[in-house]
């Protein structure tokens, strides 16, 4: 199967290990992986801020790069939602609209690709720690991914999984985290409290931006929390 892998901008810059883990896992599964080198961004920051014409610049280029694969695997739920759900709307009435509609059905967030497309849940991984899972809002509510990460975690050896009592946004929301930092931080505090209440050592997610938000507060307040991307756990043998 020929897949194109898109590693989003902040994963590329801040969490390259996550990108590496994704690439290595796909290669181990015997797939023909083509990494999309450029553009590095899906256009979501401009789109979410309302500057749709500016968003189209990077988005149009990325869309063209995504054509022609059996599947497009995207290294975050929020970027996955941008391409799969919002590109058809962003490009409505333009020449890119049919391309967006052509690419959307073959677009997958990484974990969802493993489980829902390949039917793979066991990667032979081992991670002897207590973990809890944070559902990124775009993953959960735009891409409707809930079971896939849990099925993957269930097959990781020696891992103890505890669900948080409540499903709630971490407060990142892209530029929202900088435009309204007081609200973003308050939401982050609630999230961290829920995570700590589980007794988990690690908060796991398939959204690096959420992990950046959670780790950001945990480090500043010296909370007993570490964060790790699910792909990195799955890559640990």
């Amino acid at each position, binding site marked *: 199967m020929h897949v194109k892998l898109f590693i989003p901008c902040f994963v*590329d810059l801040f969490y390259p290990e996550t990108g590496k883990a994704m690439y290595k896992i796909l290669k181990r599964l015997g797939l023909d992986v083509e990494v999309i080198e450029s553009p590095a961004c899906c256009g979501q920051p401009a789109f979410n801020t*309302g500057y749709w014409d500016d968003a189209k610049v990077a988005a149009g280029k990325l869309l063209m790069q995504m054509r022609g694969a059996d599947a497009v695997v995207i290294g975050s739920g929020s970027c996955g939602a941008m391409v799969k759900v919002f590109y058809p709307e962003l490009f409505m009435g333009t020449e890119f609209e049919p391309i967006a509609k052509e690419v959307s059905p073959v677009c997958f967030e990484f974990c969802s690709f493993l489980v829902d497309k390949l039917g793979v849940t066991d990667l032979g991984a081992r991670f002897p720690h207590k973990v809890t899972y944070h559902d990124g809002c775009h993953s959960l509510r735009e891409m409707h991914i809930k079971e896939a990460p849990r099925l993957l975690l269930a097959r990781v050896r020696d891992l103890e999984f505890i669900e948080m009592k409540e499903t709630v946004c971490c407060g990142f929301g892209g530029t929202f985290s900088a435009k309204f930092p007081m609200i973003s931080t308050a939401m982050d505090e609630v999230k961290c409290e829920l995570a700590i209440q589980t007794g988990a050592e690690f908060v796991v997610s398939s959204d690096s931006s959420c992990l950046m938000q959670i780790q950001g507060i945990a480090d*500043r307040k010296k909370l007993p929390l570490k964060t790790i991307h699910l792909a990195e756990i799955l890559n640990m043998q």
Partner: protein
Amino acid sequence: MKSNVKNFKAAALKSSSDLTRRRLILNALRNFEVTRNQKQALFQDWGAARELAAAKKWDAILNLDKNIELFTKKLESNGAKVHWAKDAESARSIILQIIQEKKAKLIVKSKSMTSEEIHLNDTLTRAGFDTLETDLGEFIVQLRGEGPFHIVFPAMHLTRGEIRELFQSKLGDAPSDDPEALTMVARRFLREKYIKADIGITGANFAVAETGMISITENEGNARLVSALPRTMITLVGIEKIIPRLDDLALFLPMLATAGAGQLISCYNTLYSGPRRPDEPDGPSEHHVILLDNGRTKVLADPVACDLLRCIRCGNCLNVCPVFRNIGGHSYGAAYCGPIGSVLMPIIAGIEQWYHLSYASSLCGACTEACPVKIDLHHHLLKNRRTAAKTIPVWWQKLAFKIFNLFACSPVLWRLMSKSGWFLQFFYVWSVKGTCLDPAYPWTKTRELPPIAKETFREWYKKHE
């Protein structure tokens, strides 16, 4: 207007810093979710109920022209007087005129968010009329000189201790802070007011065209009393409340109660079809119903925003919104707060004054998931942002995105950016980080930033390709 944004940010900062208040609200809303989920589970199919409710309201909106004419005709044939108000000022002056004609001294009101929307109480007070809220939550915030904190639970931000102090100072009667005892204090105080009042003002939750009736949902019985004892009754109803059939209430009443209050059905759901009939022993001899536009036809005309008219004002979007939970209703500075307010206010009251509300969201989508009539609330926030960027673009934001595009779309420039970013961050950390010169200060004020990696993913891939 810049001052609206500044005020909002200041209010949000103040509210989010009040940890005790945040905890009170969070606990109340978490407990509410438990009872709401229990009641939702009683439905055979809550998801299908949402589909049906959304379809019925949509059908009502698409036929508003026919429904509003039928409603008016039926209501007038029942003896009510129907007035039309194209905006808030018009509605206020109609109500004021009725009150002046009646030479009213005391007015009692049941809960009406529409009356908040048109700032009715201020107008009546300034005109010298004693206007008393009778819903317990509205009564409490009126005594405090505040607007409602939540569109269904106006005083949920207050502790029983605060309410006791309030009653002690304003009513001189509050021996205990037990919620039941405090409720009885309000009951005793308001009882004689219902009896003395000349005019009762209500809102409406629905308006049934088929039979010419307004429908009022409540738990306390105050609206029942406001509609029973005074000689004149005035009802203010937004035109989007009109539904075609009586039968539709069998769906809407339980859904409103479940989503809004975690009850299968509210205590009193009452249909009023005009003034008392000749064979009835009581009730108002005049019933005035004011149909309010105030931007609703503007929303109706909007090709994208018109599904907002499906809103049944249940408040569930507020209940689940993490922004609302942390900053509370007063921070919004608007009649309608929470997600529905953040979507509506820029559309009906001006994008220039209210655009910031649509940006003050992480777009988590919890509101859309919770809405019983399936309004795509968080996507509306996105659409409002698009309108704001077109109408009132911020030059430096546009420039920043253009520059970012240049880097993001060129592998060479991207590599240059990541390499120089990695290098410069050491100086950044030593010098400006965490100070007011820090460009990332909105983030670093409260959170740590991860470092830019020495070798990005793309650099590693190029080496190992």
